[in-house]
């Protein structure tokens, strides 16, 4: 079987395929959809203005109309308690090195070598970013190149990559900086209102809204929004949600807020700046470090708050996006849940979700202590199977991965 022969057969097997759409129509349709996605990501004011106009018209209609009866208030749906069937065997991350190896786009050993590491920029996006104890950041490019840069804030701990791996943000010491990894020039950004240290502490988490906006959540549960192009920063509209425990972006642009509402603990879905759904999620406890795929959302909880199991381990919980029913719970060894006391902040004994490798496989970071080797582990949430993806040395630790660039 020669290349030429096979090529000829493949060519003949498809020579009758013609697009159903004209190129003009397909291109215009793609451009229109791209604009919708872009607008969603940037949360254009137009969406909010339209929502306000709709509200004004609705209120005006109500005032002018003869029927003053109030519409029935529908209670928000409630997330069911985590069923026993979702609870998987407790996993001890100390044994990560004994797991079977899984092949992914990431190298099995993640270790930048001084001799081959170049200064930023990279020629393409970065798959992940590491930090060393000298506050230097190391980026693994799509082509396998390692590049490094000083953390501009002097603290490498809070760093985040956009999903496409092109934008890198670094917060610390009262400052927030951002760079396009393909040009390597750092720019300092404004912070939302309030003391600068409130938005740049070690308890801050960053979530990219596309590659143009950053959502900052601080340890006090406040949410700020920063325009990466330098158009300013403000507190984010949380739609009557306080004590935000996490925020996640679904690939279609929907924003998921986890926090406290009048209804109790809630999950709010925000599209185009407008709340489209609220689900009461008190049964889940505080849900942190959420990470969404098209069909699921994963996060950390301090345990399963049920009367009959008050001391369950903290762990990683996966919810179905349709009704936020729990599908899988991976308890982490070495943690204990005490009712009323949340023990999980940004990891459970060093374990935290980093990215979805595909719709059923979650990439977990296991960095139990600084100065010790760490690993990346894949968890098939349907089968419960765990496998080792990559291992890192004790002189670096993982800070962020680019969701789009680590998918299988």
């Amino acid at each position: 079987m020669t290349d030429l022969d096979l090529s000829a057969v493949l060519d003949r097997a498809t020579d009758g395929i013609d697009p159903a759409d004209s190129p003009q129509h397909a291109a215009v349709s793609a451009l229109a959809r791209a604009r919708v996605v872009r607008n969603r990501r940037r949360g254009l004011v137009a969406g909010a203005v339209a929502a306000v106009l709709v509200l004004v018209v609705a209120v005006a209609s109500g005032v002018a109309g003869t029927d003053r009866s109030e519409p029935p208030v529908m209670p928000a749906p409630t997330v069911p308690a985590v069923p026993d069937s979702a609870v998987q065997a407790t996993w001890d991350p100390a044994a990560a090195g004994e797991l079977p190896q899984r092949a992914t786009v990431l190298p099995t050993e993640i270790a930048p070598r001084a001799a081959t590491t170049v200064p930023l920029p990279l020629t393409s996006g970065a798959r992940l970013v590491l930090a060393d104890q000298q506050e230097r950041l190391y980026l693994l490019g799509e082509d396998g190149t390692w590049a490094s840069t000083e953390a501009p804030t002097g603290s490498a701990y809070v760093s985040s990559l956009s999903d496409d791996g092109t934008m890198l943000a670094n917060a610390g010491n009262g400052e927030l900086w951002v760079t396009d990894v393909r040009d390597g020039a750092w720019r300092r950004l404004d912070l939302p209102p309030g003391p600068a240290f409130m938005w740049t502490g070690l308890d801050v988490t960053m979530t990219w809204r596309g590659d143009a906006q950053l959502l900052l959540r601080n340890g006090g549960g406040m949410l700020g929004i920063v325009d990466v192009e330098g158009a300013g920063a403000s507190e984010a509209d949380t739609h009557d949600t306080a004590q935000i425990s996490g925020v996640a972006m679904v690939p279609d642009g929907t924003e998921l807020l986890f926090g406290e509402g009048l209804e109790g603990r809630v999950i709010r879905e925000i599209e185009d700046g407008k709340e489209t759904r609220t689900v009461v999620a008190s049964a889940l406890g505080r849900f942190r470090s959420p990470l969404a795929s098209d069909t699921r959302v994963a996060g950390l909880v301090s345990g399963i708050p049920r009367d009959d199991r008050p001391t369950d381990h903290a762990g990683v919980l996966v919810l179905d996006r349709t009704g936020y029913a729990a599908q899988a719970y991976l308890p982490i060894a070495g943690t204990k849940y005490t009712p009323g006391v949340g023990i999980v902040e940004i990891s459970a004994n060093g374990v935290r979700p980093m990215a979805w490798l595909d719709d059923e496989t979650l990439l977990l970071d296991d960095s139990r202590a600084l100065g010790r080797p760490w690993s990346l582990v894949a968890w098939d949430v349907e089968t419960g199977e765990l496998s080792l993806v990559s291992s890192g040395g004790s002189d670096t630790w993982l800070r962020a991965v680019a969701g789009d660039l680590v998918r299988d």
Partner: protein
Amino acid sequence: MDDSEFIDWVAGQQRRLLRTAYLLSGDVHRAEDLVQEALIKVALRWPRLRSGNPAAYARQIIVRDNISWWRRHRRELPTAHESEARSVSSDPETALVVRRALDRLTARQRAVLVLRHFDDLSERETADVLGINVGTVKSTNATALARLRAGAPELLDLIGRTR
């Protein structure tokens, strides 16, 4: 953004991308969906891609989205039908044999085979699209060809006839 430039690019690439997507997915309708999603993603990044290789990016999106789909729905793969074969090729018998032969491969093997032998990408380019190293491309290609030789003798017969 210059829309006409993007439209011209689509006009030049759409059919080729669709044929690639069909060989990868084995389903015309899904191939159309894969291509349309890829075009949207190219449109989103057009200002950055236009001076580079947008077709390579589009191909990368198609391949990866297809592999993701395959992982989720591998148990639902449609079987090959003559009616579809007639719609994709002037030689339905060849289309049917190719379709059944490709169905014997894993998603990655199929992707390597299509990119190397239909899209005529180099091993390096194929590795870049799939996000794997060149050595893996070589070994996957060899495994895929071996699997076809062993399991799809009707494809070998066809190749004999093209000589």
